[in-house]
């Protein structure tokens, strides 16, 4: 009984140590788990896969370094997928740190031989328009005029000097929107304005925490697909046959989940044993 009482009031530092072990140890043992992509992840993949070559896609980043471990692999996956399919990419962000992290994602992509050899050019195959304050108002304003909303790119180059941006006036000239967001302003604003008001098809990626909140948009088809957390990123990497931190970190996440579930089971056994003892 004493043992079970002790389990009920277990020092949380013991839980912390075991979770740390569950996360860290698998990082040093390289093994890959087979993914079974969720229908939501499959939806995003299918939507991008169907886009014709030469389409123009907006990829918006609303995340910061804190949430980058979850979102960055999605961003990298999306860039790779688009580049492989010959899709032109317009990067932007409604969070100040978003475009800088998008720049870092680009660097990661170009480290790989496959993409280095594509010889993609800034301004022609992809651009980064940078950050614009205002959240939903920015999206509304892009519906009227993208060049008026973003007169220059992130580095200050006038937008008319970028060949990719020639002929891009508003959402009518955008084939698809991918939004990777960790909070507000984020996906709900894009759904409300880019999809509902300006009728651009879109899909999103978000932190695992906010995924349940975005599920209603999937059922109503306002989102073609949704990547939820690191598992969503891993699904996307699996579907696009790329390697990345999503799949690499999946063993850590799997074992950490397993440890939490084991703790919950132990906690419940202890709870019932102690309660039975008290009833007697």
């Amino acid at each position, binding site marked *: 009984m004493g043992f079970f009482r002790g389990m009920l009031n277990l020092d949380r530092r013991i839980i912390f140590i075991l979770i740390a072990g569950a996360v860290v140890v698998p990082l040093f043992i390289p093994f890959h*788990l087979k993914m079974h992509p969720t229908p939501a992840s499959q939806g995003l993949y299918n939507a991008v896969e169907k886009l014709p070559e030469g389409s123009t896609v907006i990829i918006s980043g609303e995340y910061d370094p804190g949430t980058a471990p979850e979102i960055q692999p999605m961003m990298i996956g999306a860039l790779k997928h688009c580049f492989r399919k010959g899709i032109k990419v317009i990067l932007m962000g409604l969070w100040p740190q978003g475009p800088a992290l998008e720049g870092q994602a680009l660097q990661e992509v170009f480290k790989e031989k496959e993409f280095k050899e594509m010889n993609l050019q800034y301004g022609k195959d992809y651009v980064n328009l940078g950050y614009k304050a205002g959240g939903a108002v920015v999206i509304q304003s892009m519906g009227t005029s993208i060049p008026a909303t973003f007169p220059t790119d992130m580095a200050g180059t006038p937008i008319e000097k970028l060949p990719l941006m020639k002929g891009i006036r508003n959402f009518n000239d955008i084939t698809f929107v991918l939004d990777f967001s960790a909070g507000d302003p984020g996906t709900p604003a894009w759904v409300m304005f880019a999809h509902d008001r300006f009728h651009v098809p879109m899909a999103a990626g978000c932190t695992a925490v906010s995924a349940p909140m975005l*599920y209603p948009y999937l059922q109503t088809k306002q989102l073609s697909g949704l990547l939820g957390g690191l598992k969503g990123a*891993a699904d996307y990497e699996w579907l696009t046959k790329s390697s990345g931190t999503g799949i690499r970190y999946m063993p850590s996440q*799997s074992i950490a989940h397993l440890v939490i*579930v084991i703790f919950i089971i132990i906690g419940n056994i202890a709870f019932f044993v102690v309660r039975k003892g008290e009833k007697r």
Partner: protein
Amino acid sequence: MRREIPLFITAITGVVFIIAYFIPHPPFNQIQDLFQTWFQIIAAFAIILGVLNLMVVNGDKVYRRSKGWGYSVIIILSFLVMAGIGTFKLGSKASPLEEGTPFMYLFYNVYYPLTSTVFALLAFFVASASFRAFRARNKEAALLLTAAFFVMLGRVPIGDYLTSWIPLKWLHLSTIANWIMAYPNMAAQRAIMIGIALGIISTSLRLILGIERSYLGGD
């Protein structure tokens, strides 16, 4: 008067915004943009107040050597270094936001790992909180616990490894987890959202009508 003027401004602005939602004709369609810009300008100037307050509170702590004054020294120094490098464009030609500048070096090597560390605390806290809270104390708690069990295992590949031998696919953990997310979760989310939307409408009406004034300190 101190209370009446803000209430009057709130009422007028609220009514104008409601009207503007239904009238696409100028100038009503530009009102939201205009107010958003005003808000951003006010917020930008208010940052000065925030920063001043931060410096005064922490400077005072250092001066008085009050409990935890060492942390205040770190706050003041960090602020001065980051703001100084950014404002005076130290080590950068055009913009401190370009790659390779000292500002971006600090962003990637100090700010980035610090922020990620704080966010990563969630992994530990989720474990300790769920260990404490997920106890089958009654029927509802048992239901919550079962759902948590399925979703936690079903959302990671290990769940599929545990159940992939079962010939019936709907008994696989990932299938059950997907079902829980797509139906019971979504229904509950919608119900909460409808409640919240009504709450927002009601609160906004109270603000516009001047009934809600506790945020101004009164009843």
